[in-house]
């Protein structure tokens, strides 16, 4: 699957997990550990969050793959038989938030009156 290779478990981890369950107690505990880097965001524990963020792939190809993943995730809300405005509204809401963050530096000086 394009763009989602780094998110799925590599196949050998699954096999190890199965053989671990069948062979012994200690083996199963060791075999079911997934490295922090490969976990999805919702499975990362709170204490591991900074290390998860720092271990992400920030190279240009990594960033491109992240955008590709996001695009395909978004596409499943658009590529339906009866699309509606809810799909586009999601993107526009994010765009408004993003623009707000960009212009925060000017906006924080706004006041309703000059002297209170």
């Amino acid at each position: 699957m394009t763009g989602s290779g780094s998110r799925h478990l590599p196949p050998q981890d699954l096999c190890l997990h199965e053989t671990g369950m069948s062979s012994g107690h200690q083996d199963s505990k060791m075999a079911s550990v997934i490295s922090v880097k490969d976990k999805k965001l919702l499975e990362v524990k709170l204490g591991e969050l900074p290390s998860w963020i720092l271990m992400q792939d920030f190279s240009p190809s990594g960033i491109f793959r992240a955008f590709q993943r996001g695009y395909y995730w978004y596409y499943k809300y658009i590529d339906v038989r009866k699309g509606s405005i809810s799909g586009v509204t999601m993107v526009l809401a994010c765009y408004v938030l993003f623009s707000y963050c960009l212009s925060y530096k000017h906006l924080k000086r706004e006041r309703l009156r000059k002297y209170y």
Partner: protein
Amino acid sequence: MNENLFTPFSAPTILNQPATIPIILFPTLLILTPKHPINNRLATIQQNLTRFTLKQMMMTHNAKGQTWSLMLTSLITFTATTNLLGLMPYSFTPTTQLSMNLAMAIPLWAGTVMVGLRFKTKNSLAHLLPQGTPTPLIPMLVAIETISLLIQPVALAVRLTANITAGHLLMHLIGNTVLALSTTNLSMALLASTLLVLLTILEIAVALIQAYVFTLLISLYLRNNT
């Protein structure tokens, strides 16, 4: 009050890095690329709109003029989506910058002039003199027509810039007025309705795109056919 009324028009920065290129490229994410002959509802709507505008624009051209259809369709799509996205609350509209509009207008206009001069030299030069002018007026009229020709790209760019900028500025001003008056005076209701009407009329920014492409089109048409 804003610290300066023109801060929404300044170039956006992310951590002091210029961020204009991602913002200019953002409308491409909103345009679908359907891959099937019969698509879902959204893609069909988009397809029908594109077909409608294409047909309207390219009907009046001959075969040589119709080679420009991709350029003109992408121009109108880009300008329309960019201007409409600029109506979102905190967004930045790249077409408010004169630099960008000049960059769009000058090459396209120059292209039309060059096509006319290369393939129909006599005809395009003959456009400098309208038909039926009295003989003593001819030198002056040629000068005037040349000036009007040379001013076309600047007029295209400045028209688009000024219209969009003025609309956004007016909306900011009226919004600030409504906010300031809401505590003291309830004639805010009247002004709020003015703001809403202005917003709706400003969605005739899309009509501005029509104007943009159409004027470009007219010059191309003249150069190619007559």
